[in-house]
């Protein structure tokens, strides 16, 4: 009898709530009862509130059960979960769960579906199709295809990826590099981690295409040390890809060679800034560089370098597989394609939502997220990480796109949305923004290094009720200075959460009138 496939994720979010223990327990029980089950450790589907999500293959598609804990295993076996949908944790077909069904999965098409380290399965689900196409094109045509797709840097800055590639292609040098920025330090974001753990070959494929497109033969992935599982999976994936000649010399007989290496970060948030990351890769303190020169002309070791975010690179394969116009057909305005949004914090149904640009925050928070986990009212969401704005209820109808968010006083960033309920004190959040900047500033420029510290002290005075209006004026001034005078986005954007909190929630900054309910 052919064993029934049971999927239990090895994604670190799933592991953080006991996926390994569940997998072990299912395995042991199946063996002792002599039931032929084959456990596959897949990536996560991104419905993180349902983790550990156990799936069983059936003729209609995969059937989901979740969230499963070790205590549920007895009952699941009693109900014969591998052939029946009777157990109360059964959620029906995975792909019919509304949270999942409404999504448009392009970048994350395979994530959660496949075994991340099974290279045959990767190819069965259209893997390496983009690279095969690219290798038949000229490097110039590859850059053009990426440019025409409208893909913009998913790290947050939104710079057109194809234009960056074109600059590196045209730069004359005997050495060029592809550096993947996998230093996903923004709170509220986990899409890079999820795809590296759930579909690592897509990053490898994207980087080889980038290398071919611009004429680079070496790639480095700067991956934060806080992601040990992702490091482990990617290192294995690189080995497997090398063994199968998708990396290394003369890839698939094309004459093109490319090698790839993972470099572990060391806990510095600032190294997510591209020039600081390059310094760190070179073995130095992660001090931000002045631009120009831009990394595309003088990057790693002073050579022309493509620095791209994980999501930009993992999106490249589908663009080359299905064509620029297919990808470009999704989205709104100048935000083309899809964005993997990440919904976290105090939210009932948190997880990854990949969807064409243009849906609203309200869609994300309520339709997908189902409101807060605590059941209280949503007071604010912070969009785009610790340097992103705090938006209030009246801004929830903003369309999610780069320009649309900026026009509304916010920032899309890397697509992270953190939900807070009505117990949040916005003065404390503004204080934290300065505190975070003070801890994580690289210290190179004065507005950021000293400004963050002074901002923190001034916020303490505001919170203590000391000369509130005078100190708020001072903060206003300080924020202007940090925006205008900082070398990079760390100091330049720290005022965004601070000012948006003051603007949208003024009552929290008046100590006589604590607006918290």
């Amino acid at each position, binding site marked *: 009898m052919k064993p029934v496939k049971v999927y239990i994720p090895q994604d*670190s*979010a799933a*592991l*953080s*709530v006991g996926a390994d223990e569940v997998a072990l327990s299912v395995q042991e029980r199946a063996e002792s009862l002599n039931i032929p089950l084959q456990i596959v450790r897949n990536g996560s589907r991104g419905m*993180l*509130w349902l*983790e550990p999500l156990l799936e069983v293959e059936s003729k209609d598609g995969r059937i989901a059960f979740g969230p499963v804990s070790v205590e549920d295993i007895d009952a699941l076996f009693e109900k014969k979960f591998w052939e029946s949908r009777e157990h109360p944790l059964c959620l029906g077909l995975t792909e019919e769960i509304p949270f999942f069904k409404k999504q448009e999965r392009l970048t994350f098409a395979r994530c959660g579906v496949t075994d991340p380290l099974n290279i045959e399965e990767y190819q069965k689900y259209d893997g390496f199709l983009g690279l095969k196409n690219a290798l038949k094109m000229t490097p110039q045509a590859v850059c053009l295809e990426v440019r025409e797709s409208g893909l913009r840097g998913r790290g947050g800055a939104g710079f057109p990826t194809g234009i960056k590639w074109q600059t590196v292609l045209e730069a004359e040098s005997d050495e060029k590099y592809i550096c993947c920025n996998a230093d*996903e*330090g*923004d*709170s*509220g*974001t*986990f899409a*890079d*981690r999820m795809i590296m753990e759930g579909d690592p070959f897509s990053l490898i494929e994207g980087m080889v295409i980038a290398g071919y497109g611009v004429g680079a033969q070496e790639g480095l992935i700067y991956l934060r*040390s*806080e*992601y*040990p599982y992702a490091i482990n999976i990617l290192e294995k994936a690189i080995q497997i890809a090398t063994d199968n000649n998708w990396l290394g010399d003369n890839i698939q007989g094309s004459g093109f060679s490319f090698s790839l290496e993972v*470099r*572990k*970060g*060391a*806990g*510095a*948030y600032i190294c997510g800034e591209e020039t600081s990351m390059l310094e*760190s*890769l*070179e*073995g*130095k*303190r*992660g001090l931000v560089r002045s631009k120009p020169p831009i990394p595309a002309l003088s990057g*790693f*070791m002073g050579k022309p370098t493509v620095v791209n975010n994980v999501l930009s690179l993992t999106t490249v394969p589908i663009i080359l597989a299905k064509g620029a116009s297919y990808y470009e057909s999704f989205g709104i305005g100048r935000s083309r394609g899809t964005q993997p949004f*990440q*919904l*976290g*914090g*105090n*939210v009932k149904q*948190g*997880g990854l939502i990949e969807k064409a640009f243009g849906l609203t925050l309200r869609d994300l928070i309520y339709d997908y997220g189902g409101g807060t*986990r605590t059941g209280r009212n949503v007071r604010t969401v*912070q969009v785009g990480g*610790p340097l992103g704005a705090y938006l209030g209820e009246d801004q929830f109808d903003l369309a999610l796109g780069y320009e649309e968010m900026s026009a509304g006083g916010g920032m899309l960033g890397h697509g*992270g949305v*953190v*939900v*807070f*309920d009505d117990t*949040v004190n916005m003065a404390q*959040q503004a204080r*934290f923004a300065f505190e*975070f900047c003070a*801890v*994580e500033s*690289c210290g190179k420029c004065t507005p950021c290094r000293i400004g963050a510290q002074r901002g923190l002290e001034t916020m303490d005075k505001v919170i203590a009720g000391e000369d509130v209006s005078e100190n708020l004026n001072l903060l206003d001034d300080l924020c202007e200075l940090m925006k205008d005078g900082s070398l990079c986005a760390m100091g330049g954007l720290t005022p965004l959460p601070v000012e948006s909190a003051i603007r949208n929630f003024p009552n929290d900054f008046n100590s006589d009138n604590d607006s918290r309910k």
Partner: protein
Amino acid sequence: MSAFDEWSDNFATHLYEKYKNTKGALLPILHEIQDCLGCIPHAAVLHICDSLNLSKAEVDGVISFYHDFRRENDGRFEIKVCRAEACQAAGSEELVSYIQNRLSQAETQGTFRIEPVYCLGNCALSPSLMMDGKLHGRVSPERFDRLLTLQRTESA
């Protein structure tokens, strides 16, 4: 990881051979030393200066810049607790107070060290912490107690 548990000439030779062709080798070398020894001892710093042709100030500067690197291993067990916004929204500050209080009690005093981290990438299952390289999500005080007991039995 290499199998060295103290700084030695062999360890130094191993590092030199392994990284002699690596561009920007300092971080990988520091990581490997700390992974093996729990910290980066003074003797190792001197060796790095020689082999990479760097001044002591440069190497010390790198070690002090990054939160991960330590000059001394105090033997305490590290618990990384996320203090960033997504975890704050889910009650991490209350959890931190609970943990600090719990760890100051007699039976655990001096055996654990709590380190703040800013985001473990588990923002939909907050609050999160990392113990012994293992990530835990939706950590309540009760769950923390269970993890602590488990850890203490394992390391005993």
